[in-house]
């Protein structure tokens, strides 16, 4: 107990001007669960990536069993018994469940010619399923499973491995109660085997239930590290709410107008439950919540990507059936999705073609596009939004994420959309681009457009929004006006519902 299995001593890692890990000191003990909690982008994943060998450290050291170690790769970390299960599964979709569970043990054989006794593994897999009451066919292919089931298989895979340290990164986020119980019994068996578990989560109840130690991280620094029995829920929320930035957000107090959008009893199976809200002209409405709270689904639904929704969407007083993005665009709705490079840009096309892709009708006359006017108008947007380097023939895939984000914004602004749904518009982009995005939002609402800002950055929500809705499990659990919203209230609602 007194000697930690794994320690981080004064670990520093610089990422961007905005974010770095600073003086991280953590001790992890065998046979104990150490939970790490923090806002999105607080540095949880970065710590994990350092432990599991994906990132190297700038300074400080990592000590395993009393000896300093330096991992150059994930396989280095694995050789030392450190395994990680994260939201991205790494299973073989075309192999069966039992083959996947035992796939890591194959390589332990001394010779490549030794055969694998598949039947024996299959048998072992049955026993494993019995042990944890799992009702799945061991011969099914991974590709036939849903996401929580895949996560479960990942868990079993580390369970049968020879891991000494296991990192579980938000594994429970997609789990129902049944799967969570399986997860907890796996964790308790691992604990009794003396495995050291590092558990990352957003959910306070889980921490209280399973962990021995808790560390809270905020903006790249560990702000608290304690035994769980010495800490209350309220302490956790207070510590999570510590904000280092005041409010450098360019927010103007614009007079709000009439309702432009009313959402009534919106229902999407498994994601949204009876969601109703209104959006006014010139308003910035914040929507926040945990990863699976339904906040992204809401954006997708209003943009017509989910056509099986129930409920009413009313735009400027008219009920609209929005079952495709083209319906949404006709109604003046624009969506800036999370990961724009995957979901909203034409990677193979150049800057100009991307920016004008939603506005071609405007430049058409007699079946002919006026290239020189397109060039001038696009140039004006590129200049105003500081899109760099900004040569109109540049291929968009070579641009930084901040610039790509601005390209998507420019595209919708040019098309004269009136309701902008921005999903995590500033995640992972540089500060200068962030400021441009915020000022674009200000430009839009100043001229009468309306913005729905979906974000997990609570400081940003507090800084930019007139009103904020908190989603938990697909339901709106709270609404805060600008003058009454605090980080503490929002986090508490997002976590407890």
């Amino acid at each position, binding site marked *: 107990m007194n000697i930690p299995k794994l320690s981080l001593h004064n670990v520093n890692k610089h990422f961007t001007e905005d974010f770095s890990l600073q003086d991280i000191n953590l001790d992890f003990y065998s046979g104990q669960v150490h939970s790490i909690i923090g806002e999105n982008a607080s540095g949880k994943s970065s710590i994990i990536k350092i432990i599991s060998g994906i990132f190297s450290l700038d300074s400080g050291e990592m000590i395993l069993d009393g000896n300093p170690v330096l991992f150059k790769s994930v396989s280095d970390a694995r050789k030392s018994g450190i395994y990680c299960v994260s939201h991205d599964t790494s299973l073989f979709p075309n192999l069966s469940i039992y083959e996947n569970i035992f796939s890591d043990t194959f390589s332990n054989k001394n010779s490549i010619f030794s055969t694998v006794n598949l039947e024996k593994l299959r048998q072992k897999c049955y026993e494993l399923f019995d042990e944890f009451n799992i009702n799945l066919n061991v011969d099914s292919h991974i590709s036939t499973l849903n996401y929580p089931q895949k996560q479960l298989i990942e868990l079993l895979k580390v369970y049968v491995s020879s891991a000494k340290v296991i990192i579980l990164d938000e594994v429970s986020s997609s789990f129902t109660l049944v799967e969570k119980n399986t997860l907890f019994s796996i964790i308790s068996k691992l604990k009794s085997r003396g495995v050291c578990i590092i558990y990352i989560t957003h959910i306070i109840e889980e921490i209280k239930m399973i962990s021995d130690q808790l560390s809270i991280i905020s903006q790249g620094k560990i702000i608290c590290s304690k035994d769980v029995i010495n800490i209350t829920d309220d302490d956790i929320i207070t510590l999570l709410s510590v904000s280092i930035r005041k409010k450098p957000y360019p927010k103007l107090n614009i007079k709000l107008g009439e309702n432009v959008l009313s959402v009534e009893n919106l229902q999407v199976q498994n994601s949204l439950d009876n969601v109703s809200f209104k959006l006014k002209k010139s308003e910035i409405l914040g929507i926040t919540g945990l990863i699976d709270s339904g906040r992204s689904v809401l954006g997708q639904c209003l943009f017509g990507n989910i056509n099986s929704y129930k409920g009413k969407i009313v735009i400027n007083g008219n009920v609209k059936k929005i079952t495709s993005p083209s319906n949404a665009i006709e109604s003046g709705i624009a969506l800036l999705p999370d990961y724009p490079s995957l979901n909203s840009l034409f990677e193979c096309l150049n800057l100009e073609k991307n920016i004008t892709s939603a506005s071609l009708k405007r430049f058409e006359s007699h079946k002919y596009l006026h290239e020189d*006017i397109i060039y001038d108008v696009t140039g004006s947007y590129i200049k105003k939004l500081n899109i760099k380097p900004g040569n109109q023939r540049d291929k968009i895939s070579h641009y930084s994420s901040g610039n790509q984000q601005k390209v998507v914004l420019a595209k919708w602004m040019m098309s004269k959309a009136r309701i902008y749904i921005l999903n995590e518009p500033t995640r992972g982009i540089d500060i200068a681009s962030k400021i441009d995005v915020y000022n674009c939002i200000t*430009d839009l609402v100043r001229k009468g457009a309306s913005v729905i800002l979906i974000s997990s950055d609570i400081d940003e929500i507090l800084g930019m929004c007139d009103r904020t809705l908190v989603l938990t499990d697909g339901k709106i659990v709270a609404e805060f006006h600008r003058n009454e919203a605090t980080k503490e209230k929002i986090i508490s609602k997002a976590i407890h519902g």
Partner: protein
Amino acid sequence: MFAIERIKIIKNYLIENKQLEVNILSKMLNVSEVTIRRDLEKLEREGFITRTHGGAILNSEDTISNEDISENTNYEEATDYNDIADIAIEMINDDDVIMLSNGIINLSIAKKLTNKNNLTVVTNDILIATELTNHQIVKVILLGGVIDHSTKSVFGTITIDNLNLFYVNKLFIEVNGISSNLDVTVSSINMASLIQASIKNSNERIVLCSSEAFKKNSFYKIGKLSEITDKIITSSNIDDNSKTEIFNNNIQLFTSINAFEDHL
């Protein structure tokens, strides 16, 4: 889209195509046909085109001189000041008592104060005061003092004594330079002491400057930006390092991105 930009685009279009139709241009530039016709009238006065029924034809090439280009850069500056003033206007409410320090951006603000009610403006800039005499609803207080001919404003101990009679709830400070570590500077010692005095007599302060200010330092220091204000309005093309530095100092940075073309 701003008029200056539109005229530039129309000029380029004419140079390429030699002629244009009003209805096509109105659709592509997202403005009414009346607006395009007005632009064409302006270009006709400049001798650039001859208007026809429903359109215009370019005059001979040699009428396009270097003059047009140099004119454009002045226009761009004016547009920039105007865009900055547009943001500033949103921060001014009815019944406010504000001070506008001397300068061209503050003059642009003064020109836009027409739709505010019961406003009181204190200024040391004679041009601003003169401009405001056009709006009878605005109460104007022109400070006294020694006239500086180059800025057409008053400075000196008389001005500061005058200033100390008032307390304003918003002070708009136009500055000339901001260094890389955010020291705010102006071009004369009189101006520096006036601004320092006015800061003491104000509730909220907003710093205004064009992006040029970030490229040069003036000689007379007012103080650190973060000690003076928590709001700054500047052009959208300021450099990335300055943006980052301002944000990291917890200062609200408004840039005059004037991109959205609709005014709903």
